[in-house]
């Protein structure tokens, strides 16, 4: 009678220790749901969704505070991807948060810039370089086109220039077809 009890107790102790160790060793860093939502957001960091960046919006979606149709840069395709991930019904973009616009980059008119550094402070991805009282400039490759540097500029010398497709990023268009195509 005693031996089975002892055996079971020691087994329980062993498994308990194992589980305890595993829970420490394999602890999840961060919240995987937030990471997966964030991975689907376009990372423009424009704040049009009503949150100060894509990650805060991802957190708000995960907590159920925000809906999935608030990100204009992501467009309808972005809403669909979020709906797929979260197992919800896709819905049209909420027009309150603005419309999807063409990709663009900010360009500073360097002749007018007074070097006040306000735009640097507004840029969410550190795409502007400059120093106090010096001319500022945008690193085009880093700019996400979020428009956030426009309002703070006291002399209105920043302009958003739409991206013009060139031969380098051209790709073959969708063929024109007469019928809608069915499942093979």
């Amino acid at each position, binding site marked *: 009678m005693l031996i089975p009890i002892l055996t079971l107790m020691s087994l329980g102790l062993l498994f308990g220790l194992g589980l305890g160790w595993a829970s420490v060793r394999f602890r999840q860093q961060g919240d995987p749901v937030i990471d997966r939502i964030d991975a689907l957001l376009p*990372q423009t*960091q424009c704040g049009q969704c009503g949150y100060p960046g894509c990650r805060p919006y991802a957190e708000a979606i995960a907590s159920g505070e925000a809906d999935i149709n608030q990100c204009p840069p992501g467009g309808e395709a972005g809403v669909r991807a979020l709906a797929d991930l979260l197992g919800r019904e896709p819905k049209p973009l909420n027009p309150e948060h603005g419309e999807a616009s063409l990709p663009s980059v900010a360009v500073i008119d360097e002749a007018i810039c007074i070097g006040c550094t306000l735009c640097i402070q507004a840029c*969410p*991805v550190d795409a502007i370089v400059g120093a106090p009282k010096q001319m500022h400039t945008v690193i085009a490759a880093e700019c996400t086109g979020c428009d956030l540097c426009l309002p703070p500029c006291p002399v209105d010398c920043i302009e958003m220039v739409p991206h013009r*497709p060139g031969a380098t990023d*051209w*790709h*073959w268009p969708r063929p024109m*077809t007469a019928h809608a*195509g069915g499942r093979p």
Partner: protein
Amino acid sequence: MKQDLRRLTRAAGTRLHHFHGGLRLRHHKQQSCRLPVARPPLPSRLTVPLQQHAGETVAACVQPGQRVLKGDLIGDGECQRGVNVHAPTSGHVEAVSQHLLGHPSGLAGPCVVIRPDGADQWRARQPLDDWQSLAGSELVQAICQAGIVGLGGAVFPTHRKMHHGQAARIHTLILNGAECEPFISCDEMLMREQPRKILAGARVLQHAIGAERTVIAIEDQMGAVREALEAAIAEPGAAAIDLVCVPAIYPEGGERQLIQVLTGQEVPSGGYPSDIGLLCQNVATAAAVADAILEDRPLLERYVTVTGSGVREPRNVLALVGTPIADLIEFCGGYAPDAARLVIGGPMMGYSLDSDAHPVVKATNCVLVLCHDEIASPQPEMPCIRCGECARVCPAQLLPQQLHWQIRNGLWEDAGASGLRDCIECGCCDFVCPSHIPLAQWFRHGKGELRARRRQQLAADHARERYLTREARLARQQAERAERMAQKKRALRDDAARQRKVAAAIGRAARKRSADSEPEPGP
């Protein structure tokens, strides 16, 4: 596994194998092989695009008004992402401006416009006569300087391919002369007229990548080529090179298909031929390498086939890069009266342009002009009947009907997983589809879309990283500010306490003094 493959591929060319699918197509090559290759007269203007391959646009390094000599560098790719561009003849730079690029998009882009002075005067040239004593990396550097790209159609920068090869230890160099697409005969004419140059280029390439042997593959229908190459190989002092005739099945000249025929092994999906010990180069690329190393002539001209029933005198020409296509057509007798469509490349993999003002670029292997009755009248597209013909002929062993459905419905991840990236856009599936579905067009579109998505994803990941870095920096700065404030407060508090203590001490001292000075109350 990989080692096994490397060993198996050593026997390349000793026995011929098969690749899956493919088509036997009518050749249409004789018409452009009747006349010898000729050089058209110098055009009045050369427009040399600064984007010569699928990669980046390079920076112009000449100013308008500047005089350039033949072979001068005019666009500097710095051997990184772009490919060097050279002045095709001597003359004056008229402008650096936007012109048609000869690109499938039909778009304009930055070009250097040169007005030739007619002297065709070379810059000083320093051939690397001692190439046999140079290290492979020095030769690759020289190839990069000469702006050489793969001339078979893919226009991948040759130096990048060789870099890959040097790292991967190549045992066999394969020269691809199996020009399988109908109508195109520029490689065939080159092999007939310049066999020695090709062999010289092969020796340089073989030395540069440290390969043990070289195999030249040609199609079994190229009798004249075979004779010319055999004669050149038999000459005393020529390198020992194996000539292999492969059956003419389209798309035999595809890199992966040719390797499969020569070795019986497949290049792994997503991998490179160098993974199994092979490096494949087009014969024209080998000739360009010989020019660059032995004569210090950068890549500034190429053989172009001008053919089709829409041209009066089909032939091959040796055209300078930047020559307007209209000039080539004129040199070949002009358009036939019922010419209807201008195609760059062959009928299977080419693309049509709507203007002959586009220039010849390094990628232009063929200018094909078709007549009204040759243009397949656009048959009405019908729904797929799942006949499986497309899968039977696909040399990449894909399931085109499934890929088509996935692309059409925007299932990009599924299409990627089904091997869309392995499609070589050969058009075989298209050709046989009884429902006239433009399958290859869908796959070109789909591959472009996958690339664009990948680019977007990378840009988003980059922006996310920068955003998080900035957030972390702001948080750190805020914490530091808070810490400084706290320190100041503490210091102030300490200050106040000390002052209170001092005041208390002063007070005590004052009280003591006043107590001392007061006369002792008398007893």
